[in-house]
């Protein structure tokens, strides 16, 4: 419940700030444009929707309304530490992609994520190798997707 309030409040705050800052954040700002021709017209409608309905939802929650579960993905039981760790590993995978190339970065990231997901070492290595090799064969070798060339190979001569 608290998480939902914080997330909605953050979205409402950001939207309200963007609404106010629109003339500064659209460059160059055409001050003489008629309201419906202004580049800020539609963004302000969108931001007003976020602020208005976000506030309605916040007031509903503040007055004792309950969080209603939708039919979409439910992460109530999800452990934030694991999700954050996985996101950090993916961020490292993206950052290291130009250095290590696709095959090595995918293998390392898959093994690390599998370990974070509490798969046994051998299992993690097997799944990581399988995923990396399969995707490398299909997308790099067969479909010729141009992933960055591993700079590490150049550095090592």
């Amino acid at each position, binding site marked *: 419940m608290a998480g939902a309030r914080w997330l909605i409040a953050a979205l409402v705050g950001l939207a309200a700030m963007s609404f106010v800052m629109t003339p500064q954040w659209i460059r160059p700002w055409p001050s003489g444009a008629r309201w419906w021709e202004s580049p800020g017209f539609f*963004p302000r409608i969108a931001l007003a929707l976020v602020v208005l309905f976000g506030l309605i939802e916040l007031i509903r929650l503040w007055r004792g309304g309950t969080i209603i579960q939708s039919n979409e993905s439910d992460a109530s039981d999800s452990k934030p530490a694991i999700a954050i760790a996985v996101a950090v590993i*993916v961020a490292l995978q993206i950052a290291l992609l130009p250095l290590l190339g696709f095959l090595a970065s995918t293998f390392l990231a898959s093994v690390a*994520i599998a370990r974070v997901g509490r798969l046994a070492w051998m299992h993690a290595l097997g799944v990581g190798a399988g995923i990396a090799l399969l995707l490398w064969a299909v997308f790099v070798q067969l479909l010729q997707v141009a992933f960055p060339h591993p700079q590490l190979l150049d550095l090592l001569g």
Partner: protein
Amino acid sequence: MQLLADIAQGFAALGTLATWLALIAGALLGIVVGVLPGVGPGVMIAILLPFTYGMAPLTGVCLLLGIYCGAFYGGAVTSILVRTPGEASSIMTMLDGHPMARRGEAARALSLAFMSAFAGGIVSAVLLGVAARPLAALASRFGAAETAMAIIIAGICVAFAYRRQFPAAMMMMGLGFFATIIGIDPNSNELRYTFGQTGLLNGLPLVPVAVGLFGAAQALVMLSSPRSAMPQQALGGARLSLAGFREALTHHQAMAKGLGLGTLIGVLPAVGAALSTSLAWFWARRGSRDPQSFGQGNPEGIVAAESANSSNSGGAMITVLALGIPGDAITAIIMGVFIVHGIAPGPSLYTDKPELVNGIFVGLLMLNVLILACLVALVRPLARLAHVDPRQLALGILALSFVGAYTAANSTYYLWIMLAAAVFGWLCARAHLPTIPLILGMVMGDTLEAALRQALTISDGSLAIFVTRPGAALMLAIAVIAAGVALFGLFRARARRANT
């Protein structure tokens, strides 16, 4: 005659090996995602969207439609055998299907479900062929004011479908609209909210956002949530019977109710299969000679629910093809295939690309035949896929999301957007905020802005254009009533809780 000509043209359009392979692969993948725990068709369709770039538009759409339709069938397998509905729309099938499976009639229950889903899929595809063309002809008379109002109605209907989450859904749709305006303004070339970042000049791309929100975010949820074990023995009972297929056709009333409700509700934006299956199930129970046995293994319950469930597929495509407005997240992503290939979905499709529209219509018909054939041949091994460890699935989804987001533009910038969208999607899943309206907002935002600006330019800034044109006024009235009913429902629910 027009229908026969359309069918002939549709078959001719499907006449390439690549398109048939896409139909078969889509059908199989759809059944698989329906069976797999925690992976819905939206996840798979979002992941595969970037890979359709290199395909012809019809081939790409057929692949994604196969996944969409196949999942309707696949969801019944685990609902009936292990009482685990993969999708909300399979819950009503579970109510009667699982009791039948427990008393040793799993083959009968599965056969009833698949034949009913087959009938639903065929009827909804025919509806697409028959109804979409006149609707497109009507929509082709729309001016900018009517187009804007049609999009606003669609948006409110989507939020309305979330019932007590109406404000949250509207907020997320506003966020989606905002996401579309980042970048260079197409009208006046000003830079909007780019903060000096060159990557943002072309806007926030739909593909990595969709892949992140639906694919990678779901992988984060699956990896970080506790696992539930599937009973091994129950899945071994997956087989079919000819008598069960025949029996489905003998429950005329239940099937007619399911087909009628499913196709009608399928056309409405975002109302979705879950509502149509529950309404069809309750309606069938009301008219049944043996209403007491509903929920304890009555075949009519399965027939009504599954025929309603599957008959949503064609209806959902009608609004995309005839109006250019997606009804749900999946059709929004499928619309992405058109947009990527520079094709504007909507009424002009029928004059500009009739072979594409008819190809989709015939493709939907063929998909239902292919899916049923795949299930007859492979139901047992496919059912066993439910045993796959969700963590391994999540690893595969994450890796495919990574490749998919990268290949959309061969850019690591897209990977960062995908990761940001994944984290945001996971936060939304934690907070129970709906993300589907966000994607719908992103898909419809450009058209809405252009239509609003054009309408107001015509009227020289007068809002009267939305009430003086009869079509626009009617749609505005519907939109206001729908929003009013949704908000009134919220306050009434609160007052009721306060009284109790």
